[in-house]
Each structure stands twice: as C-alpha cells, then as structure tokens.
C-alpha cells in the first residue's frame, strides 16, 4: 500500500501500459513526483489520457518520448504560454493526438467508473471538429427514445491513474483539499490507482471530510508520500505554483537540447538509473 515513488512506478506501471491517466488541472495538483519517476525510468506508455486541461506532467512525458498517443482536450500553460514539447511532437508527428473535449473526458470517465458501455453527449457537440478528428472515439447513432441522431463517445477506463491528494491514512483512504478537478473521477474509473500525497492524515481527519472530497482506500492501489511533490505545479491548500521554475522549463524546452538539459538539471536524465 505505501510505496516509494520508485517502487510504485516499477511495480505498478509496466512498460507499454495501454492507457495511463494523469491528474491535476493546468499548473495545479500535477503528481510530479510520480511523473519524474516515469521519466527517470524511461517508462513508456502506449496512450496518455490527460485531465480536461493538462500542463507540465503531460508536456514532460511527451517531450521525453514516452507517449505514443495522447488523448487530450488541452495541454498548455495558460498565461505562461503554449506547451513546447507537445507542440514539437504534435507538429512533427512524433506523438499522435486523439482530440477530446472536456465533455468526452468527464462523461467518458463517468462511463468507465460506472461500467457503462459508452456515453451519449449533449446535442450540439457534434458541431465541433473534435468528433470528426477522432473517429475511433466517437460515433453517431440513433437515439432509441427520440429517433434523433446522437453523438456517443467511448468509455474511459485507464489501466493506471496517477493522481495527487492532500493526505492519506494508514488504510489508504485519501482526501482532496481545494479544487479536486477530475482526479477523484479518474481514480474511480481506473484499474490501478497510485495516489501521491503531501502528508499522512491526522486521526479523525478523513472522517471529518465531506463525502465528495474523499476516495476510500479500496479504490487506491498504492500511496506515495511526497511532501512538496507537485512542485513546480501547485498543491491546493499546501503551496502555489513556482512561476519562475515553470518559466525556466518553458524557456529550456523550446529546443530538444534544452529539454534534455532540463531533465539533466532536475535529476531526470536516465543515465545511471538501475531498474
């Protein structure tokens, strides 16, 4: 249940994992300790699923060449700029982009979590090019109730989800603080769930949380205690994002050499790691 980040990635994220989901939104609550371990171990995944808005975690994994296909609705850095490694990989064709929108991600995760065979989407969503660009994920069928045409999307059932929560107790019950975005839903839909936490929970602390802020331990495969482990992204109710560090990443990762230098400086260069 309680593992180091190295043990968790080594044991629970096999090379070639079919669908890896990574939580957090924008530059907040990215499970960076776990992501750094993936990069350090050069653990490749066939497909990465992001939250509705991904940032550093996705850009690092793509830049490190660890992702064949990415299913996403946004990878960027908001006011700080576009995602340099994602841009380079998508523009060269090094990574295949499976366009999604936040509705397909969230309703797809609901379907995955609830065992639904697929999910129907609200009328009007077929007017964007998202469903056209990703024909594997979307179909148009006849609504058996109304006879109207309806856009449907595949369920999302990640093999592994990496998410961040504030604290865990000894049985692996965890709770989220601040905004928890789609992290809880991602965990509920995934087969294997690794939760990175800031700290251990105090006695009675989890019982005092509201139901929608808690993920019970039977849904959690492993907990990794990693204080300040979301940096340079924020951890809600713990610390803000480190804007100078994010800017320095964005500057270096404009080129492949700079990206490699960033990995070197931040202890993620693969040389010297023994599996």
């Amino acid at each position: 249940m309680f593992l180091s980040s190295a043990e968790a990635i080594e044991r629970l994220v096999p090379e070639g994992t079919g669908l890896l989901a990574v939580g957090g939104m924008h530059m907040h609550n990215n499970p960076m300790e776990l992501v750094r371990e993936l990069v350090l171990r050069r653990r490749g995944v066939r497909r990465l699923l992001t939250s509705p808005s991904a940032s550093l975690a996705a850009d690092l994994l793509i830049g490190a060449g660890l992702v064949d296909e990415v299913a996403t609705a946004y990878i960027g850095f908001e006011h700080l700029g576009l995602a340099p490694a994602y841009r380079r990989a998508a523009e060269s064709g090094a990574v295949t982009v499976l366009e999604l929108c936040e509705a397909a991600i969230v309703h797809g995760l609901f379907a995955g979590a609830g065992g639904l065979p697929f999910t129907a989407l609200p009328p009007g969503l077929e007017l964007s090019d998202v469903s056209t660009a990703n024909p594997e994920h979307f179909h148009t069928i006849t609504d058996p109730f109304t006879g109207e045409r309806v856009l449907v999307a595949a369920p999302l059932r990640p093999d592994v989800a990496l998410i961040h929560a504030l604290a865990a107790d000894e049985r692996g019950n965890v709770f989220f603080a601040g905004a928890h975005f789609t992290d809880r839903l991602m965990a509920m839909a995934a087969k294997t769930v690794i939760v990175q936490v800031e700290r251990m929970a105090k006695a009675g602390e989890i019982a005092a949380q509201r139901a929608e802020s808690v993920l019970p331990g039977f849904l959690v495969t492993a907990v990794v205690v990693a204080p300040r482990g979301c940096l340079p992204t924020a951890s809600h109710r713990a610390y803000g994002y480190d804007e100078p560090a994010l800017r320095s990443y964005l500057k270096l990762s404009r080129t492949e050499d700079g990206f490699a230098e960033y990995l070197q400086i931040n202890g993620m260069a693969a040389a010297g790691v023994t599996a």
Partner: protein
Amino acid sequence: MSVTVEYSTGELMAAVMARQLRPGEVAIMGAVSALPQAACRLAQLTTAPGLWFIAGGSGAVNPHLEPLVASSCDERLLNADAVMTLPDVILVEGRGDLIDVFFAGGLQIDIRGNCNLGPVGSWSHPTLRGPGGVGLPFVARAGRVVIYSMSHDRRTFVEHVDFVSGPGFPAGPGGLPGGGPSLMVTPLCTMDFDPGTHLARLATLHPGVTLDQVQEATGFAPILPVKLETTPAPTPEELSILRRLDPAGLLRSGASR
C-alpha cells in the same frame, strides 16, 4: 470639460465585456480568463447585480477576485460565494438551459464566430499545434457567446478556421441549439453578427483606432454598419473598480491608451 484618464487595452475590453452582462444571468469562462472574470466582477458591482459567473476549471462560483489571478484553477479563486466540483460544472454546461453567456476565444477566429484552439494548418501535421479546446464545443449550447482575443491580426481573424473547437454559426443548413456568437471584443474594435447572414459586422472602433487599421488587421471583410460608433471608454468608476480588483496589473500589461 471631461478629464482624460489613461487606461489599458485590457481595462477597456473588460469594461466593454461587463456591459454585455445582465442582472441574474449565469456566465462561464475557461482557461486564461482573467479578463472575462474581471468583466463579470465589474458587472456585478455596476450594471448587473445578481450576475453569476463560474470561473473555469476551479469550479468557483462568483469568486471575489481579491485579487484577480492569472490561472483559471488558482486556489485563490475558491474564495467565492460557492464552489462546484469540475464534473458538476461540466454537467451544467451540458444541460443547455443554464448558461446564458459563454466567454470563448481562439488562436483562430472566423467570420462566423468559429473558434479554433486546436491544430492550425493540417490536422495531422499542423504548422501550429494549439493547446486544445477544453470545453469550447459547449458554446453551441449556450444562450450567447462573447468571443475575446488579445490579438487582432490576420493570423487570428481568418476567413475560415482550420479546425472548429467552438462552433460559430453553421455555413450550411441546420442551426445551433444555443443562441450563437453575439459579440467579438478585440484590442481594436468590437464586432457583432448580422442577423440575416450571421456574418461578422463591425460594431464599434475603440478610441483612436481607424477603420483602415481594423481592415488591415482582419483576414476577412466584416460587414460595415450604417453608422460606425466609437467604443465608450471606461468610466472613472469602472476603472477604479478594476484597479481595486487587479493590484498586480494583469489587465494593464498591454498598451496604454
């Protein structure tokens, strides 16, 4: 005699967007949305008391913006009247009868109000891979769509977007379930949409901007109105509220006017 007060392009745009909102409406916005958030808070404090707004991925409902912040998921936004979970926000967007105003934007925006935040150029090998549209497909279901862009040039304002992230008015048969785009607000002007053709129509020029300047910077030919007005400048009251919300000057990083 009126006193001339300097203001930034961002402040002017926030004031213009605030005047689009009405009391009791529900507005929503996505990533990089400090500008529409400021507009909503300004509207609540002036012409649209009782307005509701949902600040992007944070799920914050009526964030107090003390202060305005740059990221749409910043935990300081949770200092708000209420907070929803993100899955709840996405349910509400899907219902289609709750969101009156959707603030949208794009790397490319076209004459029918389509917005593209995805690939520019070819879909499989784009010349510019945009970040992605997040919730922009939902604009099809909103009461009306206010489009904003901090760039007004021919790369941004194009005849046809290369990829539709947020649907504008359809070119062919069939309509939108929602009301469609109502206004575009840029650093140079505002454009609305001709009710007959659903094509962009120049509405107002910002103070000091010429028609030539707009036409030069726009990749399509907007319909010209019978009478071209000047965008009213922010009032001293509006500016005073905006500056109280924004001590860091997020809205003042652009050019002064």
